[in-house]
């Protein structure tokens, strides 16, 4: 396998619902990535596109729609959906194509326009799609699942409501310094603890909403392109994991889970991160910057443990002791995280990779981590989907 570098990244800033079409957002991100890499569109030899599931035929063929905007060149276009880890799947395919020598330069992108109102079931077949059951019979929007796990955690360890609020306070401090974030207000502990419960013990400010956003990454093994790029970043590993039998986590859309754990919690992310550590030849102790999926404050805590940055039940202490701050031992979510962005399904994993790359390239201004060498982007998706990307300079 050849060494593969990120030479260009682009983002359309995260925002709320928009009447604009997803392809326009994608084009902004891809334009940004091409300019950053300082290359022409014709250099792209493969397009790995994240599917925008609410976009109908166009959204399912988002790669073709993007290609027609920039000019059709006949290169392979593959569209992929892995729920919230869709971006991980697209960058992994771009990496594999280049590393294997199939192509020299590939583009991964994703764009998502937040649907108006709530996310809900996409079919009406309860036998085939249990998601229909959880909506019609279960009365369970997504945050319910996180709240059930959060309560279990609070019963088992000393996690408090203050810890959950502390996550939001920290994320909002960073989000206020990120021009691409959707939410830029810095919150106090009091404000977070006074926000209403959505599903006890999780409060309104402790869960993330759905957003609109787009992100694009250009990877290459072309030595000339690497040489002329501004601070290229090496991809040490980009992996995907699925769940393991006996994982006790109640997965979103499920109506049941195992009562006896035979596998780690969030085993899909355990799998993805362990594959990445092995491939990259690094461990959690080598990581300087971590972007983790803080869909809720509970996720922030449990992901530090799932990915091996501390033992089970120890994340609260890391947070309280300031070890996860930008100036701490491990800078966690200097972007402001999902808490400051919200979810834009097919784009979010790429945005996490871009934040890691930008930190390594020293481009993050007020939220810049001091001189980082290794960064890790960790995703989490519905139904046992996860991806990990480890980058270095």
């Amino acid at each position, binding site marked *: 396998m050849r060494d593969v570098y990120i030479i260009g990244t682009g983002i359309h800033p995260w925002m709320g619902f928009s009447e604009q079409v997803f392809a326009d957002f994608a084009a902004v991100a891809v334009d940004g990535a091409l300019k950053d890499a300082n290359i022409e569109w014709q250099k792209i030899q493969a397009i790995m596109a994240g599917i925008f599931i609410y976009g109908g035929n166009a959204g399912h063929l988002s790669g073709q729609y993007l290609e027609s905007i920039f000019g059709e060149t006949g290169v392979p276009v593959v569209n992929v959906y892995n729920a919230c880890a869709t971006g991980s799947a697209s960058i992994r395919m771009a990496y594999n194509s280049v590393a294997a020598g199939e192509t020299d330069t590939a583009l991964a992108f994703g764009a998502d326009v937040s649907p108006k*109102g*709530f996310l*809900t*079931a996409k079919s*009406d077949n*309860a*036998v085939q799609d*249990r998601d*229909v*059951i*959880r*909506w*019609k*019979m*279960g*009365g*369970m*929007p997504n945050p*319910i699942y996180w*709240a*059930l*796990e959060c*309560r*279990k955690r609070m*019963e088992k360890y000393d996690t408090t409501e203050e810890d959950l609020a502390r996550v939001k306070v920290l994320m909002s401090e960073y989000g206020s310094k990120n021009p691409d974030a959707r939410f830029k207000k810095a919150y106090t502990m009091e404000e977070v603890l006074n926000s*209403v*419960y*959505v*599903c*006890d*013990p*999780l409060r309104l400010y402790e869960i993330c909403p759905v957003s609109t956003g787009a992100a694009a990454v250009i990877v290459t093994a072309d030595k000339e392109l690497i040489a002329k790029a501004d601070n290229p970043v090496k991809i040490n590993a980009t992996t995907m994991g699925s769940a393991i*039998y*006996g994982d006790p986590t*109640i997965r979103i859309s*499920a*109506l*049941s*889970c*195992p*009562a*006896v754990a035979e596998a780690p919690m969030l085993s899909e992310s355990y799998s993805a991160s362990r594959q990445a550590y092995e491939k990259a030849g690094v461990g959690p102790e080598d990581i300087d910057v971590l972007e983790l999926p803080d869909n809720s404050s509970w996720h922030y805590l449990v992901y530090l443990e799932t990915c091996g940055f501390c033992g089970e039940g120890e994340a609260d202490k890391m947070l309280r002791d300031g070890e996860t701050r930008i100036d701490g031992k491990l800078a966690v979510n200097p972007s402001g995280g999902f808490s400051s962005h919200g979810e834009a399904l097919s784009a979010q994993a790429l945005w996490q990779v871009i934040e890691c790359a930008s930190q390594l390239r020293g481009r993050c201004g007020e939220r810049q981590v001091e001189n980082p060498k290794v960064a890790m982007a960790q995703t989490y998706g519905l139904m046992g989907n996860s991806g990990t990307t480890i980058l270095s300079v």
Partner: protein
Amino acid sequence: MENMANKVARIPNLVDWSTGEVRLMSAKCASCGTYFFPREHYQHRPGCSREGVENVLLPGKGKLASYTVQYYPCPAPFRTDKKITPYGIGLVEFEAEKIQITGIITETDLKSLKVGMEMETTVLDLYVNEEKQEVVTWAFKAVL
């Protein structure tokens, strides 16, 4: 048990009251021993031959492994003409079967919920359909 004659589940094959007790409809794999709910959603152990999956009813009682309180109305396609919000959602453990199952909690004193308490499977009336039947879902209530 209250009169169940005029009740119908909104989605079939999930909850049963034909035995005189409300019970969840699960399936057990004879080869790997795993219980499934809903019963069509297989979760076999890797390497299992997947032979001998049989429909079974879970016991009527379990214990509360976790819970939350939902403070805003669940959006469609959830449907009820009763005012149920805020409502509890429980994760109830059936110990021998090694499975935990979610469900709305009918208890209205939400402050009384505690992890570990004994829960009983029941039904929750959602709405009346065109045939004048009470459409229900499965639910849990505290055993007092």
